């Protein structure tokens, strides 16, 4: 952790991510209004610093008079929950398959990697739309859709890294010591490919948030009236000239989250490499 906080880029990304998590967790307590209940008299009120704005709604209100700030805070919950779950599911499945493919080789590898090729060649939005239409928009479905589209990335990365690790003598020696394939994959391969996978996971956070926003924008994401950043942008689209704040604030939220997560991922790349860890002493 100390290594992470050493420079300002890391500091920035870490702060943004921490604030985001805090916002998501604390939303029910810090949001000034109910995110789904609107007051029609207050609708399309601009943010506080613009003519006609008031402190009652700091970031303004939407078409139905719902408070934008409250919706953003609750939206962070949705985005982060989708992110965490989808990446966890996709990461576990993809890594397990990728490591198995890389370590075992042979027909196991051939089958898994052909499926990965297939998964990567699928048109993302089309499949997501199809799935959304077939099974209806819901929180669970959006996690499943995104996991389905994401696992192949983890599988590819895990396989490539596993091939590198498998060529190392310590894997041969582990076999010479009597370890089974399963325990070698678990005890020797996974810890060595783990840091790359964690970095990939943080880099995927941005992708998932954009994916979730795109799906919500297209109407197959989290069902209304629950706020998601993507659907907020979608709803504000037709008012973008007269009421810019409807789209800009959720857009900025997506932008900063993705940026911070990507920067954090880059920092982790350096920090997780054990031979670069200085604070362990020697």
């Amino acid at each position: 952790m100390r290594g992470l906080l050493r420079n300002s880029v890391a500091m920035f990304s870490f702060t943004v991510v921490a604030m985001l998590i805090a916002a998501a967790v604390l939303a029910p307590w810090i949001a000034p209004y109910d995110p789904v209940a609107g007051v029609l008299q207050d609708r399309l009120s601009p943010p506080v610093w613009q003519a006609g704005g008031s402190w009652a709604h700091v970031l303004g209100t939407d078409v139905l008079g719902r408070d934008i700030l409250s919706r953003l805070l609750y939206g962070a919950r949705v985005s982060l929950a989708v992110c965490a779950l989808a990446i966890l599911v996709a990461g576990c499945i993809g890594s397990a398959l990728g490591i198995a493919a890389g370590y075992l080789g042979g027909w196991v590898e051939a089958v898994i990697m052909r499926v990965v090729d297939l998964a990567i060649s699928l048109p993302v939005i089309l499949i997501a739309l199809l799935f959304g239409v077939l099974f209806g928009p819901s929180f669970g479905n959006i996690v499943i859709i995104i996991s389905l589209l994401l696992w192949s990335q983890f599988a590819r990365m895990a396989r490539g890294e596993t091939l590198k690790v498998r060529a190392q003598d310590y894997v041969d020696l582990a076999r010479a010591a009597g370890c089974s394939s399963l325990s070698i994959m678990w005890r020797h391969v996974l810890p060595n490919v783990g840091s790359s996978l964690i970095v990939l996971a943080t880099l995927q956070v941005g992708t998932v948030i954009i994916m979730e926003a795109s799906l919500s924008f297209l109407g197959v994401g989290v069902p209304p009236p629950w706020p998601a950043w993507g659907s907020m942008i979608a709803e504000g689209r037709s008012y973008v000239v007269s009421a810019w704040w409807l789209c800009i604030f959720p857009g900025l939220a997506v932008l900063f989250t993705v940026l911070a997560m990507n920067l954090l991922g880059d920092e982790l790349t350096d920090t997780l490499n054990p031979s670069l860890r200085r604070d362990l002493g020697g």
Partner: protein
Amino acid sequence: MNAPMLQVRNLTVGLKRHGQVLRLVDGISFDVQAGETLGIVGESGSGKSTTALALMRLTPRSTWPHTSGQVLFDGHDILLMEEDRLRAMRGRDISMVLQDPMASLNPVFTVGKQIEEAFAVHNLCAKAERRSLAIEALRRVRIATPEQRVDDYPHQMSGGMKQRVVGAIALACQPRLLIADEPTTSLDVTIQAQYLDLLKDIQRESGMSMVFITHDFGVVARMCDRVCVLYAGQIVESAPVRTIFKNPAHWYTRALLDSVPQLHTKAERLISIAGTPPQADSRSRGCRFASRCTNAQARCLIEPPPLQEIAANHSALCWYPRESATS
């Protein structure tokens, strides 16, 4: 004499490439007695490391269909053994040390954890005892202050120390046979000598056998009781270590010994053997060394040479072995 601990009979390891089976190891046979050290000497590409892996059936899966012969450990054939039984033997009865200590240790675990794994795999002791046993194992390979070193990561150690840790892992379960594949090649000379002495001392205490694979005759002289000289996948000569140095029967062995730089003879250039060993896919029908041999006759190029008994325990794969008088 008791039956040998390890008997290798006609071991062949092949690899299919472009529709052709290449024999990396081609019908080798040798014995290792309990407590004995056997050296396997050869140039790079002669099949030394493949032999080492085959002794524990660690050769890549792609070679399995083209592997034949027998590797008998206590009379049981390792090449035919069920996976579970073989796994129980690996690390417990037979252990291995490889050339590169940097690559032999897992960078993400402390050395202590890696030694403990050896105990864990074979369920040799209670979980709570493992750490103290790991410290004991480090002390055995003469690591100073093992209580502190046990929590070090591999990158915090020097090359020589790492190789000793690799040794500690291999010897953790007190195996009866240690296969050492060029364990000192990447160490500098003084550390090399220390490491070899360490292995010898441990062997003296525990009575284990060793198969020592090397290209270095200095190491052979220091460590081995008997030597097999490997050339292009075949054992061309096998003899007790003194005989190999004093009275080699095969011309290849002689040439190898001549190419070892000597202190007392001043040479302008180092002596080398002309030519290169034949590739596994382009070996002649006759003697594989014939094209480089200074004494090759017409027959050597056409007919495969016989294995000739020169003396007790001394044989050479040659039509016209060197006369012993020349020594």
